[in-house]
């Protein structure tokens, strides 16, 4: 369901882009040519080249792309879904790789790629990764089933969060509520909202200004651990807190 929806949206976007580019390229070349006669160059020669190249890229037959899931800096690994007209694959283990021939060929089943090879293919891109220390810090608070009550281990996380807030003096604290997939979508949306507001109220009670706190909630739509519907999963009953 999710994959299908994603694809339909993208396909439309792609078609529009191709059309858009074809439509604008010729007038653009005219303009750029005229510009160089008319006034001093703000434009340097590669501009028309860039546009033409983009059109070629989309018009010719593709040879194949490579997608690799990497571990995050904090050691966690998320997941990506690679989707096109041919199908969809989920990568959820670090080093998982899929290849895709073109937009109509299905992505191949995930295969592991060893670190060395990833390092050599992406060496330059990896070494250009910016400094990550100013990034937001995130915490997860877990809740008891169908409740807005924190689990005992998560109660112990609260002082860590408060310490981080004191050190960082954040301009934004994002609070995002989630649930597992037991119960209806609308029930879980409300539950996730109550959980997020519970955490917001906790921060307010500690004297944090309400202007800093940004609350949102996603119900059961974004589980941390993928499950079938109606499956109880403690890891998915959570509020994520991002401090920046």
């Amino acid at each position, binding site marked *: 369901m*999710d994959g299908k929806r994603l694809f339909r949206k993208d396909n439309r*976007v792609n078609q529009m*882009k191709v059309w858009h580019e074809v439509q604008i390229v010729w007038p653009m070349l005219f303009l750029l040519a005229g510009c160089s006669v008319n006034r001093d160059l*703000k434009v340097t020669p590669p501009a028309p080249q860039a546009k033409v190249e983009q059109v070629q890229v989309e018009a010719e037959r593709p040879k194949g792309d490579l997608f690799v899931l990497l571990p995050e800096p904090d050691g966690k690994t*998320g997941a990506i*879904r690679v989707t096109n007209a041919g199908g969809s694959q989920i990568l959820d283990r670090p080093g998982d790789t899929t290849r895709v021939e073109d937009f109509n060929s299905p992505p191949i089943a995930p295969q592991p790629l060893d670190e060395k090879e990833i390092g050599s293919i992406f060496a330059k891109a*990896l070494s250009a*990764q*910016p400094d990550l220390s100013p990034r937001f810090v995130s915490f997860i608070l877990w809740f008891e089933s169908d409740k807005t009550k924190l689990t005992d281990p998560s109660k112990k996380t609260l002082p860590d969060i408060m310490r981080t807030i004191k050190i960082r003096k954040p301009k934004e604290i994002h609070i995002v509520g989630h649930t597992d997939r037991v119960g209806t979508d609308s029930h879980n949306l409300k539950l996730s909202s109550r959980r997020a507001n519970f955490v917001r109220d906790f921060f307010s009670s500690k004297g944090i200004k309400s202007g800093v706190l940004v609350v949102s909630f996603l119900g059961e739509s974004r589980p941390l651990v993928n499950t079938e519907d109606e499956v109880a999963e403690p890891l998915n009953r959570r509020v994520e807190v991002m401090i920046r």
Partner: protein
Amino acid sequence: MAHHGLRRLLFFTAVIFFAFSIGDRAFSAAPFPVIGALQKVSGTGFVVRQDQIIPAKAGLEIQANDTLRTDPGGSIGVVFQDDTVLSLGPGSVLVIDEFVYAPRQGKLSLVLRMMKGTAVYLSGLIAKLAPDSVQFVTPSASIGVRGTKFAVKVEER
């Protein structure tokens, strides 16, 4: 007949010149908001913005609709306003189709289109707050992101 065609072409060209001279002023009067900045530039790279090609250097601010390019020896790193981190290896072209970060208004969107080369992406707040609003598109597929880091290599086609 040939004269007719030529006259029409001249007229067409004049209209375009006129449109361009207005459009140009309109654009410079209302610049796009800054959405991030370059970091860690090595070798040669460019930011292509409307009719400008700006050489990449650390600290250069970027805007929505910019195209990022690197030469065969170049690489660049970018930090977006929402802490999304992106780096491009040599010979890469990436278009920032959309970037909106206004969490208090619930307006969040990030659409990146990779044309060729290599990239490493680490998701930021938009992916955490509104995962469905993030799209990373290549000519062969699109990637749905769930708060994570990945690498992409797009063949030159």
